């Protein structure tokens, strides 16, 4: 099904541009053209169809649904909704406050917010097309687990103590309200043309936002692909040396990308022989632990809570890396 993109790249790069097949430059450009054309077409088509399906799902409905759920299923639901609900990172603050003022426990809100950047339809799509369904399932499971465990831990240490005071007050008020009356959801049935309009707008919007990430991501991937000598990564990092995982996580923090940009890089790192655990740790750290996000969250959280959150995330990614490097031979 994807052969057509390989053929297109071969025609363009070796035919039209006249680059030599098998040279470093030719290989890198071929990789770039093939991946970019494939990803662009997939993105537009798939976002449209996924958006058709989830047109009626939004953060307000998720809030109403999560409010009043007990904690046991709450973390799981928080992580699931984090994965499937569309929302851009500039909305983290209003979403955080909306959940909090509905009395939803901090841990469940954080399960939602941690999972959200890690897993979304674009990421899943790219993973499927570049790395196959097994890896995709694994990635989704790991991402949700990190979100759930993060949320669970934050509640276990009563992290809501370290919210900014107005947010903490909103949480208390929300709990009282949730206890006294049920929150009501207004159900509305969407017509097909409304769904189509939503899906069209969504496809254009998301594509407009992520296309440059795809170019950057694939460009980096292509550079790695073409110019890092074969076997270099494998020789130096290929044994899954224990320290390489925390090192990868640390390198990932100042780097910031969304999942769309990092996945082509992931493909390239894996192809170069970087162990799966180290790759996952690096990519998750790049996507989920970012300075811009933390600066936003400072508005509703005290430094102490931000520090705890950062430590929880980094520890989780390091553990993910170690576990997968250890388990890789048996997968």
């Amino acid at each position, binding site marked *: 099904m994807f052969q057509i993109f390989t053929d297109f790249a071969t025609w363009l790069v070796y035919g039209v541009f006249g680059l030599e097949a098998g040279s470093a430059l030719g290989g890198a450009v071929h990789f770039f053209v093939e991946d970019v054309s494939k990803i662009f077409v997939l993105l537009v088509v798939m976002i449209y169809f996924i958006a058709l399906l989830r047109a009626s799902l939004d953060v307000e409905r998720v809030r109403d649904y999560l409010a009043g759920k007990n904690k046991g299923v709450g973390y799981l639901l928080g992580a699931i909704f984090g994965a499937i609900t569309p929302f851009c990172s500039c909305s983290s*603050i209003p979403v955080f406050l909306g959940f909090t003022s509905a009395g939803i426990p901090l841990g469940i809100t954080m399960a939602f917010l941690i999972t959200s950047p890690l897993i979304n339809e674009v990421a899943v799509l790219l993973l499927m097309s570049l790395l196959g369904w097994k890896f995709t399932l694994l990635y989704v499971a790991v991402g949700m687990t990190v979100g759930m465990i993060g949320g669970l831990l934050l509640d276990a240490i009563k992290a809501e103590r370290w919210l900014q005071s107005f947010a903490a007050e909103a949480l208390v008020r929300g709990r009282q309200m949730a206890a006294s009356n049920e929150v009501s959801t207004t159900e509305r049935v969407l017509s097909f043309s409304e769904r189509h309009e939503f899906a069209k707008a969504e496809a254009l919007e998301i594509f407009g936002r992520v296309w440059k990430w795809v170019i950057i991501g694939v460009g980096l991937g292509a550079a790695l692909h073409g110019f890092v000598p074969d076997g270099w990564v494998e020789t130096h990092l290929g044994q899954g040396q224990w320290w390489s995982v925390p090192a990868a996580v640390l390198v990932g923090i100042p780097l910031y990308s969304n999942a769309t940009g990092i996945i082509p890089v992931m493909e390239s790192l894996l192809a170069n022989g970087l162990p799966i655990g180290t790759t996952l740790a690096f990519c998750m750290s790049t996507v989920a632990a970012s300075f811009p996000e933390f600066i936003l969250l400072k508005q509703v959280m005290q430094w102490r809570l931000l520090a705890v959150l950062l430590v929880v995330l980094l520890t989780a990614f390091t553990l993910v890396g170690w576990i997968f490097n250890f388990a890789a031979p048996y997968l």
Partner: protein
Amino acid sequence: MKQVKVLGSGCAKCSKTAEMIADISEEMGVDAIVKKDTDPQTLLKFKVMKTPAVVIDGELIHSGSVPTRDEIEGWLRD
């Protein structure tokens, strides 16, 4: 005189919304003051979960997207 506030934590869409409202009110000759409000407490007060949101004279009238020109003209007219 209309007091227009655009709520949101400073994303590109919020700035665009504020600019559009300011431009259109000027075109229409409507007397309006457009301000951006990035204070999270304001979001909480109006129960806004999707930004950009628009508040005119203390009333929330829009949330979750950059409004269309027609919508803005409608708000400014009455």
